[in-house]
């Protein structure tokens, strides 16, 4: 597992992907940071929130090759025929991408350091937003890992994760629309004689259920500086679940291939 972790992590820096991702992230973070300078104060929580808005572009780029590349280049045979645990390999690849993501995010503590060195204060909200950004990134990387495990083509893998991550930003919109749809349908076809208040309650329930799968909903409290354990538990659970599904997909594809 460590061998694959090291290989995957170093592979980012043998190609332009690692360097470009770090540079792009630092550039965008730096742009946000410097735009506050003329105002004489810095919104560090805002920087994390701002950077979270570009994850749906950056994460697919760093995860697209994790498994798709192995199949394309024929190195998956080495993975399958070596005395290694396949679940460990999948985890190692996920952790390698996560490590690169953490490196990219070091730009935020660096900016915090600059703020502190000039006598500024980094509050709980800034730290909360930073942690929320890392947790959100970890979930997105798990989505990207799963997309890469699902296809042999890097571009298709990137497109799948890009679409899923982009749509994930609008889950609350879909939730609201589903609520309205459910309320109007139940109202129009009220065969069970349900009261209007109950119909509204059902609508709210549907909206809440859809919002529950949205990581943003869980991370809201962290973004405003309130530390609670459930958001961390939710994100880590989703990471584990998606990485496990990726592992099962790799296993399944191995046994069903027409080689």
């Amino acid at each position, binding site marked *: 597992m460590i061998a694959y972790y090291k290989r995957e992590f170093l592979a980012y820096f043998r190609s332009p992907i690692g360097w470009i991702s770090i540079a792009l992230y630092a550039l965008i973070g730096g742009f946000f940071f410097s735009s506050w300078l003329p105002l004489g104060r810095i919104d560090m929580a805002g920087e994390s929130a701002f950077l979270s808005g570009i994850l749906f572009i950056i994460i697919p780029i760093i995860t697209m090759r994790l498994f798709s590349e192995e199949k394309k*280049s024929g190195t998956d045979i080495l993975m399958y025929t070596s005395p290694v645990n396949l679940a460990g390999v999948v985890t190692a690849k996920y952790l390698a991408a996560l490590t690169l993501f953490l490196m990219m995010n070091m730009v935020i503590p660096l900016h915090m350091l600059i703020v502190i060195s000039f006598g500024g204060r980094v509050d709980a909200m800034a730290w909360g937003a930073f942690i929320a950004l890392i947790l959100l990134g970890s979930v997105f990387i798990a989505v990207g890992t799963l997309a890469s495990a699902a296809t042999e083509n890097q571009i298709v893998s990137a497109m799948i994760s890009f679409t899923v991550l982009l749509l994930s930003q609008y889950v609350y919109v879909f939730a609201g629309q589903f609520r309205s749809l459910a309320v109007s349908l139940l109202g129009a076809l009220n065969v069970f004689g349900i009261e209007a208040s109950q119909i509204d309650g059902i609508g709210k329930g549907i909206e809440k259920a859809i919002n529950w799968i949205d990581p943003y909903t869980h991370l809201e409290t962290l973004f405003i500086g309130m530390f609670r354990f459930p958001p961390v538990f939710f994100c880590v659970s989703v990471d584990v679940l998606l990485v496990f599904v990726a592992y099962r997909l790799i296993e399944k594809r191995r046994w069903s291939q027409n080689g």
Partner: protein
Amino acid sequence: MIEIKRLTKYYGDKMALNNVSFDVKDHELLGLLGPNGAGKSTLMNILTGYLSSTSGTVSVNGHDILEDPTTVKSMIGYLPENPPLYQDMTVREFLVFVCELKKVPREFREKIVAEVLSLVKIYDVAGRVIRNLSKGYKQRVGMAQALIGNPEVLIFDEPTIGLDPKQIIEVRNLIRTLKKNHTIIISSHVLAEIQSMCDRVVIIYEGKIAAINTPLALSGMMSASSRLMITVDSSSERVSDVLRGISGVTRVSRIREENDVLQFELFTDRGTDIRREVFSAMAGNGWPIIEMRVNELSLEDIYLGVTDTAARKGEAK
């Protein structure tokens, strides 16, 4: 060493392997011979744990590949048809990575990599990125990764494909060297390669075993008769009559007549050696023999014969 029992593999509805069974002994060099699509690579992929079989078992030193995959995989070094190489790594980095995969203790890694580099003669490119190497070097790096960890069994799928003649000779010599310490299975559709290297040959045709034997025994098995080629320095019409008169000769065929030199092919019953009688008969008539050789069947003849027979049987059904 390796036991393969009733191995069957389906890809959807297509049967790739049909009830294949054979054993491989310790330090044996076994050749898998068959046309493209015969099932050689499928068989090798199952042996190495890359694919599962639909039914049947594979065991190495008593360990079943499905029940104890990690142990079996640690005993096998595998070079697939396309070497599995990370193109972005240097040769040395890649081999160290393979050492880690094969759980070679850290303190031995450098030594083992150095040994393997010199064994496959790629020391001079150890620091180069694999992407920039020639096909021949990449093939050798592929062999090097198979040798890491000193596995008891080596499986090479078409190890000389795409190499130039000099590289082919080098790879064949390397495989012969490795035989001293390893059990080796190689696949090839190059008949001469199998014939020159292997102790035993398994001929696979349409997923079934068409024949298993030594290259020599297969020649004998397929040959209904022995053939003797003889060139005589004479233009006499009597030569063929004299040859027909030799005991054991079943047929005489004149092949060539040129500048008072005659060439014949003599057919005899299998196992009958008539060379001495031929010599005496020709010498007695004052006809010098310029050339005399036994025409053994090549593996190509055997292969075509066996596969034709198998095809005919299939058609008859």
